[in-house]
């Protein structure tokens, strides 16, 4: 089985890896680049725990092959904080205790950041629809939505 050489950018860093064409981007991020923030929940694009941004577009990294990442700009949950300084979304998630077991949290942070970049002033309904592809088995949705809405408000006031 011949492997493919992939050159891509993850959280601003140029990276390279060799992958089998059957390996997903999620496999490559976790097993080759040791970026284990993105989680495999379902592996079939239903749960959103593996959400990453590819060229500014929110996708499930389990529904994309590692070989397709060549030349792309990938952003994962590891790139959200600025060093030790948490992103406002991360800070709000802590304040609201918007996580229980934490498996869905990286995907929800990436998805929520993507929402606020496109729409700094979402309604609660828009936020709930945007995050409909991110499942939380602990069912802590209400705190998650409140944390996102409050972050959006604070970011608007700050800008």
């Amino acid at each position, binding site marked *: 089985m011949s492997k493919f050489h992939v050159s891509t950018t993850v959280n601003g860093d140029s990276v390279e890896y060799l992958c089998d064409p*059957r390996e997903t981007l999620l496999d490559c991020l976790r097993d080759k680049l040791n970026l284990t923030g993105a989680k495999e929940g379902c592996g079939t*694009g239903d749960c959103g725990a593996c959400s990453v941004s590819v060229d500014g*577009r929110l*996708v499930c990294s*389990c*529904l994309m*092959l590692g*070989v*397709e990442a060549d030349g792309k700009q990938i952003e994962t949950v590891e790139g959200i904080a600025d060093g030790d300084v948490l992103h406002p979304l991360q800070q709000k998630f802590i304040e609201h205790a918007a996580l229980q077991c934490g498996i869905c949290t990286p995907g929800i942070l990436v998805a929520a950041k993507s929402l606020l970049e496109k729409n700094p002033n979402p309604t609660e309904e828009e936020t709930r629809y945007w995050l*409909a592809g991110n499942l939380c088995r602990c069912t802590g949705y209400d705190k998650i939505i409140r944390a996102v809405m409050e972050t959006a408000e604070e970011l608007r006031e700050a800008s």
Partner: protein
Amino acid sequence: MDYHSPASFAEASALAANATGITRFLAGGTDVLVQLRSELVTPDTLIDIKKIEGVSDITKNADGSWTIGVAATGAEMSEHPELGGDWPGVVEAMDLIGSTQVQGRATLTGNLCNGSPAADSVPAMAAAGVTVTVTGPEGTREVAVEEIPTGPGKTSLSKGELVSAVHIPARGEDGGDAYLRFIPRTEMDIAVVGVGVNLRLDGDTVTEARVSLGAVAPTVLLVEDCAKAIIGSTLDDAALDALAAAASAACNPIDDKRGTIAFRTEVAGVLAKRAAKIAYARAKGEQA
């Protein structure tokens, strides 16, 4: 599994024509990768068409028609400043598929070629009169959308053939389209019934109509009797009742956990009425 990313549709077609075993084309991958991961379909040859120039383009042509690239995503269609103004039904049907994440990758062409009877964009495209260009070893041909699926998971594309462009007709004056589906929840589900309606008016009278049903037969249905029921009418109650009766009569659904035969047949009529009213309002330039 061999992975290829050809630079042209001719090359993609040649690769597929010469491949042995199972071949799949990869656009958004939201079906192909699920089938691969769940070991339902493990392709021997996977041909990624996204390196072909222009495949993500959404273009309004000089005659008012649209050409949608085979890798243009649902998100790109929804965000397009003009496409949704011309063809709101096609765009809303595509937008109903999956989550934000799925919208970032899923394509009209993938939805069509996956061959699911419940594909949301397909009835909307059939109602709109969408055609696709098929590129194969013998050259290209134009095919109506409703002639692509031949049964669940099956298409009329032969070995070495692939869809290379999607063409939506010019909207023209006094026209409107709409797509509605029934699902047991508000989001993230597969259609139990889907109905696409596209019509044109002269004053208050319907002069042209196309009505298409999804998820109520092995393939999408373009129902001539539904169109006949409303052409020449002002979409009065009698015409709407005739439309609903024709839609229900055309149904040949399965019974499954998501909907019984009786339920799907009834709902097809109800949704046909509602979608026709929305398309009519849109043709009049009203918000709907």
